[in-house]
């Protein structure tokens, strides 16, 4: 976890994540890992038991994890959502907007580039899982 980047104030949760299958097969785990292609909705009944959901990106172009994160946030999950794997600086803004609040990238992220990328856009066009206010709301109060 050398490269771990967190955007949360609480302590990092270090219980190793188990697979969805293992979790659903009556485990007491508090961390789960979702592989690309697995249905995040399976976790919805158990969200209050979870402290960490890790969502894997096998390739950065594989966008399934964005939906997984947003689905969990829409269901009210407040715990940590961590993007792991092929996570690159140029995708992290949209990941933040979809509800990811920690990152375990396979390769280290350049901090200056990340800071610039996350601060780049002052405005967004649509609601997502973050608290950015869409411009239609700014336009109409």
């Amino acid at each position, binding site marked *: 976890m050398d490269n771990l980047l967190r955007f949360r104030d609480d302590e990092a949760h270090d219980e190793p994540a188990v697979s969805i299958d293992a979790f659903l097969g009556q485990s007491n785990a508090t961390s789960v890992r979702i592989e*690309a*292609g697995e*249905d995040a909705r399976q976790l919805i009944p158990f969200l209050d038991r979870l402290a960490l959901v890790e969502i894997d990106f096998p390739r*950065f*172009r*594989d*966008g*399934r994890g*964005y*939906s*997984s994160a*947003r689905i969990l946030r*829409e269901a009210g999950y407040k715990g940590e959502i961590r993007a792991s794997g092929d996570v*690159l600086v*140029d*995708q992290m*803004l*949209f*990941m933040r*907007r*979809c509800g990811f609040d920690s990152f375990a990238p396979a390769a280290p992220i*350049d901090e200056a*580039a990340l800071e*610039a*990328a996350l601060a*780049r*856009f*002052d*405005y*967004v*066009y*649509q*609601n*997502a899982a973050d608290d950015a206010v869409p*411009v*239609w709301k*700014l*336009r*109409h109060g």
Partner: protein
Amino acid sequence: MYRYDQYDQAIVDARVEEFREQTARRIAGAMNDDQFKPLRLKNGLYLQLHAYMLRVAIPYGTLDGRQMRKLADIARRYDRGYGHFTTRQNLQYNWIKLEEAPDILAELATVEMHAIQTSGESIRNLSADQYAGAAADEICDPRPWAELLRQATTFHPEFSYLPRKFKIAVIAAQEDRAALRWHDFALRIVKNDVGEQGFEVYAGGGMGRTPIIAYQIREFLPFAQIFSYLQAVLRVWNTHARRDNIHKQRMKILVHELGEEEFRRQVEEGFQHFLTLQTDFPQAEYDRIAAYFAPPPFETGPSAEIDRSDPEFALWVDRQTVAHKAPGYAIVNISLKPITGIPGDISAEQMDIVADLAERYSFDEIRATHAQNLVLPHVRKADLHALWQVLDAAGLASVNLDLVTDIIACPGLDYCSLANARSIPLAQKIAARFADMDRQLELGELKIKISGCINACGHHHAGHIGILGVDRKGTENYQLLLGGSGAEDTSQAKITGPGFDEDGVVDALEKATNVYLRERQPGERFLDTYRRVGMDPFKEAIYG
């Protein structure tokens, strides 16, 4: 026309700076090409055979004179003095240097333009009816919805790394001028039984190697819920589509695999969920956007008389102009298909002329069409002759709208790194063969569409006559297809049989037109005759 406010401008400006910084990191080697590629594609930048190609978005095909002049300026300064209008109503430059691309995007931003999401696995620039706001047969102007959806789908955080590209079209007329059902997601504005307007929704269409015509997924969707519905569609696709085979990742394949009913069921379920999130844009935002598309101040009662004493002008009027909703006005089609030209190409000088004409005669509006032509949507009939004279002097007064020489052709092997065969020289050969005006008029409406490979950018599946370039043991070979349509009578063209070399396919095409002339009944277009008599007589004439 829509104008950016401070927010739109800030977003586009930030995007330019983002890409400038990303390009610098790529050039400095801080990012590899695999990592850079999706980023440049989302900014319209392809690597082609000889150079980078930049695809500029012309949202729903609408632009004004100032924007057209900027396109000309960029063509002169950064390219070789011309541009190419595409079947997606966009404009492509063919000779771009990577290190200059950020400057070009900055230039575009000064006239409220961009190249955002014009390629890559993203929600692409929307297409729409090129006669929107002018057509006599529309129930409203579809462009406010297109602009609203442009904003809603720009930098959508969940749907920016989709399985494949995603194309949307919007129309509001019975006649389909936008190849609606060949899109992944298509909207036709309709009225329901109680007179409310809303969307008829189609999903799962697309060309490429597995052509599928979109199916009607919803008969009526209230306007206000469109963004929820679209997100539901996208989420079903984004979460379920395969990611292991690029040829099987378009949404049409998922719809096909799940079945229309099951796909619809999942979308409806997701739709109910999205409605609870309240992400739809409010009526006030629609109203704000719609105000920009208020009809221009048409004069009441300008003369509808046209002096037809010049026969060349009369011929042009009859072919290139279309009924306008306002009395005394006409919609003017500018052909970008001169007989010896490259379909869709336009020089910087011609762009400037079109810009002038738009400002002088068409309330400063220009449209690009998916058939790679231009439109001046609002011209007083009394001005047609003056306008025609300027077009004629600029080489822009060809008479061939929807005729055999109005050929759609993709860039093909002359530019495109994916091509199997050349499209442009073939289009030129066909145009030369059928150049005679009387012969063109005799053949009537006949839409020829040429693609240089299976990706079908030249819409060959939707051609009355389609031509597909393939690679046959290392030589260019062309398959002939008949019976496609991109209009409201959408259909998929069928292959006639074994392919031909370049001259052979021109001969075969001519034989097909001869069958039509022999078999047709009064009032029938080529497509109608083909549908009535079927493939056999054509096969016989071509291969017999």
